[in-house]
């Protein structure tokens, strides 16, 4: 079955929302929202910690503990995890998976070490990719799309999987926040090149977009933030639309 995953951006223990990673606004208590999404039929949750200062990073540990006590679906913590110790701390607090982004690009060996130590299944590698202007593929970006790396996104995806990533969370930086649909070319290129599940992210706007990520993008899961937080669609509506388009979902 294809998973539907709401993503919650968290700053200092509170949920905020990003449109193209620039304008963000407060949108509530993460654990309450998580429980609501569970009740609506969300298959999984991702918390993206955007807390900037190191001193306040402990807020995420408390959030993980509270979530693990009250929400009985899998959840992933991403953002700001740099070391094996960072990973160990959130997993020990009750997170099911961690998502590594810039730390994995900077130190690909971290993916390997973490996968060996904690198991492939709890290591997600997040890839933010932007289409090259000359149309020759996609490049990996860091820092919410601000810094280019020169790394080819599809190659990096295959390498991350080889090094032990159990899943890939692929965000199109061109589409993120635009609501014009997922970049299904990017998704298909990565899903076909890597032998592990791919989570599609960036661009969901209409109900039809979610099925497209699967039928055209070959994704194994779809992730969205604003369409859910803004109440544009419920998880149930998205799943009903996917089912109508022939995509198997849990209902």
């Amino acid at each position, binding site marked *: 079955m294809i998973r539907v995953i709401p993503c919650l951006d968290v700053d200092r223990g509170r949920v905020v929302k990003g449109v193209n990673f620039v304008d963000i606004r407060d949108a509530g208590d993460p654990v309450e929202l998580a429980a609501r999404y569970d009740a609506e039929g969300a298959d999984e949750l991702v918390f993206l910690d955007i807390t900037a200062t190191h001193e306040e990073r402990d807020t995420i540990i408390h959030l993980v503990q509270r979530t693990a006590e009250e929400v009985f679906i899998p959840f992933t913590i991403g953002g700001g995890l740099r070391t094996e110790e960072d990973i160990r701390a959130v*997993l020990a607090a009750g997170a099911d998976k961690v998502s590594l982004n810039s730390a994995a690009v900077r130190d690909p060996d971290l993916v390997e070490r973490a996968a060996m130590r904690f198991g492939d299944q709890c290591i997600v590698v997040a890839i933010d990719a932007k289409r090259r202007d000359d149309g020759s593929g996609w490049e990996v970006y860091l820092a919410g799309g601000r810094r280019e790396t020169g790394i080819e996104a599809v190659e990096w995806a295959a390498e991350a999987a080889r090094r032990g990533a159990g899943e890939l969370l692929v965000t199109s930086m061109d589409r993120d926040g635009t609501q014009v649909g997922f970049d299904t070319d990017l998704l298909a290129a990565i899903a076909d090149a890597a032998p592990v599940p791919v989570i599609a992210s960036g661009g969901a706007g209409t109900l039809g977009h979610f099925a497209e990520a699967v039928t055209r993008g070959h994704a194994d899961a779809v992730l969205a933030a604003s369409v859910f937080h803004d109440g544009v669609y419920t998880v149930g509506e998205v799943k009903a639309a996917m089912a109508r388009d022939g995509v198997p979902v849990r209902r």
Partner: protein
Amino acid sequence: MALLDYDMSNLRSAGKALERLGARVEVCREPGEAGDADAVVLPGVGRFGAAMERLDERGFTGMLRERASSGTPVLGICLGLQLLLDESEESPGVAGLGLIPGRVERLRTSAKVPHIGWSEVHWREGAALGPGSGGPADRTYYFVHSYACVPTDADDVLGTAEHGVGFTAAVGRGGVCGVQFHPEKSSAAGLALLDRWLAGVQAGQALAS
């Protein structure tokens, strides 16, 4: 309820789910701490060989075999289920707990491995752990695994699921049972399953049928 802690699992979730259902959960780091528990839960995430090594170190291997033979209900979850069998392709040469005859094999499927996600379980007719009536959502659970159990005795298979290929999703023999999925991560359907198991333990029923 004794919940075995051998550094190989996401204990908090399994414990919290059981507590939510009203069970008193004792997290045990050594066999002595599980002394008077009515039942034992063996969670687990990670590799088969490393997990057996830790169970041995902690003295849980002998304790689990003794408790199982004296009829204490045991529930294995995910890797905890796989450990109940004799051996695993993941760690050749390592003996499992041997509470359920059979071996653990890698999923041989054209679909992506690990199998991560929700799948519907086809329970054997009348399986006590199964939901009985209800819709597909009531028997759809969250899985994360690359290996699956192949019990020697087909009667030990309580439920199957599919990931490009059919595989065993739930097993049971006497008071010992296990599920390949994570009931503690399977929303209402998973909590309902744990609730049925707890009710069975309380009523002294064998759930392995």
